[in-house]
């Protein structure tokens, strides 16, 4: 690749100051939220308009150079990990809220808009944007769309995909394409549905239309302390079994509580083996009736202390411990891996027991934080990288936890994405035929395999070949004609 030549071309297209090739400047972008992987990109671009994004993609296509999109860089699966011989396209300078159309319950956003800023802008109209990843104060809408981000409240309200009604994107061949819009049910294939969550492999969003939700009349939150995760799990089962769908049910185990306490002094009940945060929202009369049920179910399951948030400040304090949990484990461990797996919720007690056994076997600790309502686990594998072999054991345990999720019919990722990190686990969840079929979609969008190559899929499929099973290295790889993407 002719880095200088392409950089020069890009400078002419979008402006000198928006193209970086200086190594010191590039270093800022060598990893995303999963810092264990680091790759220095050849070129970083900082476009400020959709037209400039398109110009960069077109230049890449012409030069047959791979490109990777990046928003705020908070992703936890290495989805925005740069390509060493490629161009990183940072969308954080496209940060305008183009339209806040409360009458139609929609907002039109540039990809660099920060998640929480959408809710802030909508609040004066009585609306909010529902998907709320823990990083919502910094993560961008473009990244949310790429990863189909979730959050604590997706049990009731769904994920990013359920809240995006339209997108304008630059497809991997450099075309500007509008999918969907403000109105529901656009005719044709639901390409928007496939695009959301495609982790940057099907193009780059330059404009996103999202659904705004009416703020609920009432929100009530309780924090319940239990002796064990089993008891807390029983409370969750009872609540769901009674036909109540809370806005959120979050669980933390003892180790995660210790960490949160050390980091943000959330003052959760002392001696708890597990805490549940349960939040109900909706019409006041409905919430009132269901809240009593939830409280009763928690007591029956053995809650030894129940606190009910009296106001928004107290509610925020309940959530503070939970939302800071990932970073908080840094207080109790020199290093940690944030895992993201999903199991059928009813398998929770069994999976937690087995996970504890695995942790003992591997000689490392696991703190557990999870979206208990939908079985999305975030085990935090704690280790000390100064201790010989511990990092490897932690990595091994982390993989074993994913196997455990698959064994129980779950998923290797509920909201962080496959990215770079989990591509190798995909064949354990899907057959070769399943993966091959997914690659057909990629080939339709990206025949030259330039858009975020190396992510999601463990092995490449060269577009245009006859569908079939692949064993071993691809012939073109073996001949050195194609690199391993």
């Amino acid at each position: 690749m002719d880095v200088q030549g392409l950089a020069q071309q890009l400078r002419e297209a979008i402006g000198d100051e928006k193209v970086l090739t200086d190594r010191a400047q590039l270093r800022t972008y060598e990893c995303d939220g999963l810092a264990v992987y680091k790759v220095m990109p050849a070129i970083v671009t900082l476009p400020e308009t959709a037209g400039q994004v398109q110009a960069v993609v077109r230049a890449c296509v012409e030069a047959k150079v791979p490109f990777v999109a990046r928003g705020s860089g908070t992703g936890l699966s290495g989805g925005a990990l740069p390509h060493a011989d490629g161009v990183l396209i940072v969308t954080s300078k496209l940060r305008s809220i183009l339209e806040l159309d409360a009458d139609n319950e929609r907002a039109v956003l540039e990809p660099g808009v920060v998640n929480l800023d959408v809710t802030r802008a909508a609040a004066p109209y009585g609306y909010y944007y529902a998907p709320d990843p823990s990083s919502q104060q910094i993560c961008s809408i473009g990244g949310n769309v790429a990863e189909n981000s979730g959050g604590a409240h997706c049990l009731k309200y769904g994920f990013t995909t359920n809240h995006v009604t339209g997108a304008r994107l630059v497809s991997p061949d450099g075309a500007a394409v509008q999918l969907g819009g403000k109105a529901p049910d656009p005719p044709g294939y639901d390409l928007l549905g496939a695009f959301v969550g495609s982790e940057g492999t099907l193009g780059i969003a330059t404009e996103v239309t999202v659904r705004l939700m009416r703020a609920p009349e009432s929100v009530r939150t309780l924090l319940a302390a239990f002796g064990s995760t089993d008891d807390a799990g029983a409370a969750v089962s009872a609540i769901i079994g009674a036909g109540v769908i809370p806005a959120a049910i979050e669980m933390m185990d003892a180790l995660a509580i210790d960490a949160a306490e050390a980091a943000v002094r959330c003052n959760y009940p002392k001696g708890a083996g597990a805490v549940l945060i349960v939040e109900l929202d909706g019409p006041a009369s409905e919430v009132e009736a269901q809240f009593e049920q939830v409280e009763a179910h928690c007591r029956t399951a053995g809650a030894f202390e129940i606190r009910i948030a009296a106001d928004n400040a107290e509610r925020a304090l309940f959530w503070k411990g939970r939302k800071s949990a990932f970073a908080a484990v840094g207080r109790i461990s020199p290093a940690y891996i944030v895992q993201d797996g999903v199991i059928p919720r009813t398998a929770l007690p069994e999976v937690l027991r087995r996970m504890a056994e695995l942790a003992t076997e591997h000689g490392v600790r696991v703190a557990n934080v999870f979206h208990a309502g939908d079985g999305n686990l975030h085990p935090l594998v704690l280790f000390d990288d100064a201790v010989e072999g511990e990092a490897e054991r932690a990595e091994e345990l982390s993989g074993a936890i994913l196997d455990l999720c698959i064994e129980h019919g779950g998923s290797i990722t509920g909201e962080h994405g496959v990215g770079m990190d989990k591509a190798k686990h995909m064949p354990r969840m899907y057959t070769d035929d399943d993966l091959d079929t997914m690659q057909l979609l990629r080939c339709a969008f990206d025949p030259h395999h330039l858009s975020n190559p190396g992510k999601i899929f463990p092995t490449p499929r060269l577009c245009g070949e006859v569908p079939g099973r692949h064993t071993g290295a691809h012939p073109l790889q073996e001949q050195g004609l194609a690199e391993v993407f």
Partner: protein
Amino acid sequence: MNDGAVLDDLSKVADDRVRPAGADDSIDGVPPGYVARPSSTDETAELLRVAAHHGLSVVAKGSGTKQDWANPPSRVDLVLDTTAMAGVVEHAAGDLITIVRAGTTMTDLQSALASADQQLALDAPFPSATVGGTVATNSSGPRRVLYGTLRDLLIGITFVRADGVVAKAGGRVVKNVAGYDFGKLLTGSYGTLGVITEVALRCHPLPTTQRVVSIDVPDGEVAADLALGVLRSQVVPSAVEVHQPAAGPVTVIVLIEGVESGLGARADAVRELLGAGAAIGDLPDSFGHYPFGSGDLGLKITTTLTGVGPILSAAQNLGHRHDVPIAVRGSVAGVLYAAMPADSDPVAAARVLAEMRALAATYDGTVVVLTGPVETRRALDVWGPISGLDLMRRLKDQLDPDHRLSPGRFVGGI
């Protein structure tokens, strides 16, 4: 093509469930050569491999309630009748999910789920429709306001590609972002990307009770304003419908669901929003059913919320101007269905379609001809302009390079 050889090869897969097609087997007026009724995903795959070998075009068919939707196929050699692939494979009530075979009827699915006080929160305008057909046409109803549509409820899919390869995407857990979401691609694809054999769906608890509040008003604009008032309130309705017959008053119908002790206050709030004349009653028989009957011309109109009123009044005006009665029913969330009688003048129908399309476009919406007399549909642009068509064609070319699955039915001649 050697017909005997084809029949032999198909019969080797599913002997007693393969037959030459008869006069009743036509798909939207197009006579097929053979009908096969596979009993499993594997059998479907084997049949599709035989079809690929012989270059047969294939149309999947469930109960056949919507085979006169969209465009008629340009050709049909083999009909794959999915109704032998019936039954709920699993209902994990504690996990709020179910796995169901494509040939199961919506009625059977709902009654299976109801035994555990759960539901698939999706209205079935045709109760005898199969799950597979419902997914393939992405049909939905009034409760889309609260629960969304299949794209919000389908969490996993098994389908067979044109080349006979079985593929799965998604899974059996609600939260899952591993791999591309083929469930969404197959939803509303009208059988052009693959044959759906099994799906995993998210379930919801059955509400304990429901209340219906409705009001009759003189015209569509007023109805839309009232309906939008409820939609934009904090009462969280499950459905807000507007029924505008070809002549006469327009009805707004609001459905609220929940726990008994909470419903009274919510129903009062709705009554207040709708104003004097609003009454608590029962759901009308028409609720959740299309305004068009068999043979009628049926349109699906989408719009932003602010376009609902103008579209309702335009339907009245267009009806008068072109002398064709137009009834409209649908959700104030922006999905309306319009009906014109089967014997409507095709020229008038074409004008109504064109004008309605132009109006809907100003509200970011579209108009699709869902159904109607086949000669009328052949004369109309059923799908209208499609954004992203080039990528759609490329996807079709990847999954079905010979264009043998439901050819001609879909957008852009796909």
